[in-house]
């Protein structure tokens, strides 16, 4: 039980370090409260955005936190690849530059696997191959308005 946990933890941690650096230029790592007995404690995300002091996740800004959480999700997906991904407004808290970094990462990964991403933000919509438009008609009915190709 501990073996399989530690194997998953190390794999996800390796991926997290690489991905966090790619998204934010800084360095990050996952830390177990209790190395000896992981099930006795929790898991903390320790990150240091570029040229900043190491801080607890709580003290960071809204955008920095969400970029950190995204790197954690992407690391889990890298450790346990799936045939398709569906994301719902993952870029909501990000400024233009960070939203574009995430959009480019999705675009790069979409060469080998399917991505379906709900988004209101321009960087994501412009990086995609196509956009499916959705509207609400009378009587509470959703209608697909068509598809726009890039």
């Amino acid at each position, binding site marked *: 039980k501990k073996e*399989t*946990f530690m194997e*998953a933890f190390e794999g*996800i941690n390796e991926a997290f370090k690489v991905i966090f650096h790619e998204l934010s230029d800084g360095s990050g790592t996952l830390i177990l*409260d209790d190395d000896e007995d*992981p*099930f006795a*404690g*929790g*898991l*903390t*995300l320790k990150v240091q955005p570029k040229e900043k002091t190491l801080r607890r*996740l709580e003290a960071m800004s809204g955008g920095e*936190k*969400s970029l950190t*959480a*995204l790197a*954690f*999700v992407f690391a*889990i*997906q890298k*450790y*346990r*690849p*799936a*045939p*398709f*991904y*569906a*994301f*719902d407004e*993952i870029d*909501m*808290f990000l400024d233009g530059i960070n939203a574009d970094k995430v959009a480019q990462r*999705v*675009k790069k990964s979409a060469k080998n*696997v*399917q*991505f*379906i*991403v*709900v*988004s*209101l933000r321009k960087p*994501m919509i412009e990086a*995609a*191959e*196509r*956009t*499916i*438009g*959705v*509207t*609400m008609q009378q009587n*509470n*009915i*959703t*209608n*697909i308005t068509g*598809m726009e190709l890039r």
Partner: protein
Amino acid sequence: MYITEIEFLNFKSFGKKVKIPFFDDFTTISGPNGSGKSNIVDGILFVLGLSSSRTLRAEKLTDLIYSSDESKKPDFAQVTIRFNNSDHAIPVDSDEVVISRKIKETDSGYYSYFYFNGKSVSLTDIHTHLAKAGVTPEGYNVVMQGDVTRITTMTSLQRRKIIDEIA
């Protein structure tokens, strides 16, 4: 393996039959607030049995059936998802896999049926097939609206539990 089409019938705000085509690369879905974008993602989780009714913003499964003030509420909702399985990520003969789920409301409650390539199966069968292709409820391949915020606000114990389930 990838999704080629999703068909919604009476599921949440899909009050009339809607078929949405998908392709093997990067697609975005966009539209105004409340237009039904997240309902599409909810539909994927529903048909693949990847979530509970609570995560689909419903108190009970029958809340997922389309309802409106203007018309009589249907007694069923159905979502059907088609996969291109030519790489046989799901180890069955056919190059196409069609998974469908229907919930039917009766006077005394409701029934929930799963179909795999036309055959009636159980939720566990669906999970077994999907796990072979790397699709599991805890794999985070579907990230719902608000999941990112939930990860930043959860306790470090809850975060560790995410790894427990993956291991």
